[in-house]
């Protein structure tokens, strides 16, 4: 019951050639007088470099047999009468499975693909081994797993093999023009790319003081400033664009297609970015005055005066709570002093606000991602006073909390054993216990005050972090959206295949069926794979419960480190 893979678009008589391992797969038909002529032609074609590359992934093509087509075609697929030279001799009619021969330039191909698991992933080792082990079957070596991929490679390269053989048949001596010209312009771009690489290497290895200071500043500011990170990632993308125009040796359509898609995806994202950025810039320019007003007065009122009012309220028995007067006064005065200092700095910087707004406009002309990055940094800068007060209060609160934990151990008669990382029973001396009691009364009287001030600044810090997190999330999503891949799915699904299936259709004659190999598109989950990964990282860092736990336990809240986000490229 074995069948032959026949290309859909071949309907000539002659000698059919193709591969006979792992399955009988016909690549095309040669019109020749005798099979020895066809053999000679194949041997001649096999000497060229491209066919050698093809042979490496598909296997050696041979003349398989002779085929004759009847004059009337009753079905939409060709039905040849084939007489095969190899394989078991059959007296009955052979069955055909049809496949599409895609042109190499069209970037369509079949892929066996990881079809995605439907039920569940069996990660558990025990379960896996129990499924693999089967007492009835003898285990063969894993060579068999390649046959599917080899067959798919054969289908993908059938058309290019035919073109190469025809080219050989016409025995042209001139090389095909097209790759030559493309090679010339790519050589220009690769030269530019090499020059950039050399300058970067030169800067990194130079001993010149200026360059060393500059690179140090760059590396250091990368940790703090989103704008610098954004500039760096955009520069890296542009460099990859320059590199991505290289030609790839024919043979691996999958690699070529993925390079193509990546190149155009980056290009589209950047262009989209610029377009939306320019639109945003227009919007900012038109409502410039409103933005200035909004920023200056609303900000000063909310971020400075409100905090002062709240601090004053906390100082004078808030909601009837009797806080420690001296400590509370000290706290509120010092925080108000910090904020007043910052306010004075802000006042001197106020004339520069229109300039920063113009900088924002300029940034948005470079892309909306740059504008978002600038807004992120501005949020950071203008909330610096809250950050400072938060750091002070979280340190005090954290220390007090650790003191309480240690005193709790003291009163239970236990001690933390650092060597074994556990608490062991321990006999304390009387004076140690006395000291502990004194400290405990101190802490018991001061803790509510510290707690109240800490709650204030912790809530402000959490809200700032949430705003910052949402901005960063939007930025990350805009940087890595798989726009081109989505459009390709809609436009030409055969260029992003997710797997193959056999389509069984009844023939027009009514009796039999035609079986053809088709490919279905990549599922959305695979296209958005990087996105999901990024989202998981962001969600893990900015998880609300994690933030609450950090607030309660007195740990410092920070923004997501740079390597977490940018290593997904």
């Amino acid at each position: 019951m074995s069948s032959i893979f026949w290309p859909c678009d071949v309907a000539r008589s002659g000698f059919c050639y193709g591969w006979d391992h792992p399955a009988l797969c016909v690549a095309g038909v040669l019109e020749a007088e005798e099979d020895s002529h066809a053999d000679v032609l194949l041997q001649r074609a096999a000497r060229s470099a491209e066919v050698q590359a093809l042979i490496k992934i598909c296997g050696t093509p041979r003349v398989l047999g002779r085929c004759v087509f009847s004059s009337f075609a009753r079905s939409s697929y060709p039905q040849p009468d084939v007489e095969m030279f190899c394989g078991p001799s059959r007296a009955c009619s052979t069955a055909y499975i049809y496949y599409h021969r895609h042109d190499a330039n069209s970037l369509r191909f079949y892929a066996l693909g990881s079809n995605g698991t439907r039920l569940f992933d069996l990660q558990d080792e025990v379960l896996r081994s129990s499924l693999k082990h089967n007492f009835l079957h003898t285990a063969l070596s894993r060579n068999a797993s390649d046959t599917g991929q080899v067959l798919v490679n054969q289908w993908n390269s059938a058309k290019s093999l035919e073109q190469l053989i025809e080219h050989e048949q016409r025995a042209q001596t001139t090389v095909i023009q097209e790759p030559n010209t493309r090679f010339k312009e790519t050589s220009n771009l690769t030269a530019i790319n090499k020059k950039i690489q050399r300058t970067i290497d030169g800067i990194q290895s130079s001993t010149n003081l200026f360059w060393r200071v500059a690179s140090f500043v760059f590396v250091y500011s990368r940790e703090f400033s989103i704008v610098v990170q954004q500039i760096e990632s955009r520069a890296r993308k542009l460099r990859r664009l320059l590199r991505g125009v290289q030609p790839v040796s024919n043979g691996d359509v999958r690699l070529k297609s993925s390079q193509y898609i990546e190149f155009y995806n980056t290009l589209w994202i950047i262009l989209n970015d610029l377009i939306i950025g320019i639109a945003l810039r227009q919007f900012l320019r038109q409502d410039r005055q409103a933005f200035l007003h909004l920023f200056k007065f609303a900000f000063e009122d909310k971020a400075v005066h409100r905090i002062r009012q709240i601090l004053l309220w906390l100082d004078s028995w808030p909601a009837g709570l009797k806080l420690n007067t001296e400590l509370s006064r000290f706290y509120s005065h010092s925080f108000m002093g910090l904020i007043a200092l910052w306010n004075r700095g802000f006042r001197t910087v106020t004339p520069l606000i229109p300039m920063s707004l113009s900088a924002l406009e300029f940034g948005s002309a470079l892309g909306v991602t740059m504008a978002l990055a600038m807004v992120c940094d501005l949020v950071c800068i203008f909330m610096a006073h809250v950050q400072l007060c938060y750091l002070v209060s979280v340190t005090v609160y954290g220390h007090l909390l650790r003191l309480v934990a240690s005193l709790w151990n003291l009163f239970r008669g236990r001690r933390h054993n650092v060597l074994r990382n556990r608490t062991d029973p321990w006999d304390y001396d009387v004076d140690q216990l006395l000291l502990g009691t004194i400290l405990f009364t101190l802490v018991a009287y001061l803790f509510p005050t510290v707690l109240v001030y800490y709650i204030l600044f912790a809530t402000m810090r959490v809200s700032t972090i949430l705003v910052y997190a949402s901005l960063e999330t939007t930025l990350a999503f805009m940087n890595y959206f798989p726009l081109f891949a989505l459009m390709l799915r809609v436009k030409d699904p055969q260029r992003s295949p997710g797997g193959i299936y056999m389509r069984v259709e009844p023939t027009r004659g009514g009796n039999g069926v035609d079986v053809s190999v088709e490919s279905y598109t990549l599922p959305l989950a695979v296209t958005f794979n990087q996105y999901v990964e990024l989202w998981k990282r962001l969600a893990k860092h900015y998880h609300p419960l994690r933030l609450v736990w950090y607030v309660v336990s007195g740990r410092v809240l920070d923004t997501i480190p740079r390597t977490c986000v940018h290593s997904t490229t």
Partner: protein
Amino acid sequence: MQRTRPLPDCHPELSVIEWPSFREYRVENWRLARDGSGNVVRGATSWGWIDLCLPVVISFIWPRFRGNTMLWAFAVLVVGFTMYCRCVQVLHESVLVFPAYGIQLETHRGYPLLKPLFVSRRFIHASLLEDFIINEGLRRWNVRYYLAAVHGSSTDKIALDVAFENILPHFPVLLEVYQGVQELMFYNHTNNRHTRI
């Protein structure tokens, strides 16, 4: 093309169809009643009594619909939903066995009196197919059997794909399909023993 029913007495919904390049094990979405009376219990019906109630209900509510677009939209949604439910019933599911190439699990859905409208297919190449097994599933106090194709993917993860996922026929049907697939896919005639392709 040759069509046989290997279990005509108890499970006539299973039919084996021999095509030139593959063999199809088709299970249709009906069964015989289990009390032995020989009645046919259909899984996919073309009409039911509720379809007659729907026009009656609409004719009662219609005078009130005149002015209200929201209710009208809701009614259209309900009618559309019932029609959609009727048109995506499972007609039959099959396992196509291409010897030496692989197996394909198919589900055909549509309206019961017409040709299938939607077909979902899943092809597993022979090199990826590790095994074709009957698994025991425990659901509450029952044991249910199902056919599963164990296959690896390119990322070296093992996964299971259930054959006849929606109909879930009973054990004799599963045994028949299991034996057929094992014979075609895993039996090496020259060595006369079971191997993997």
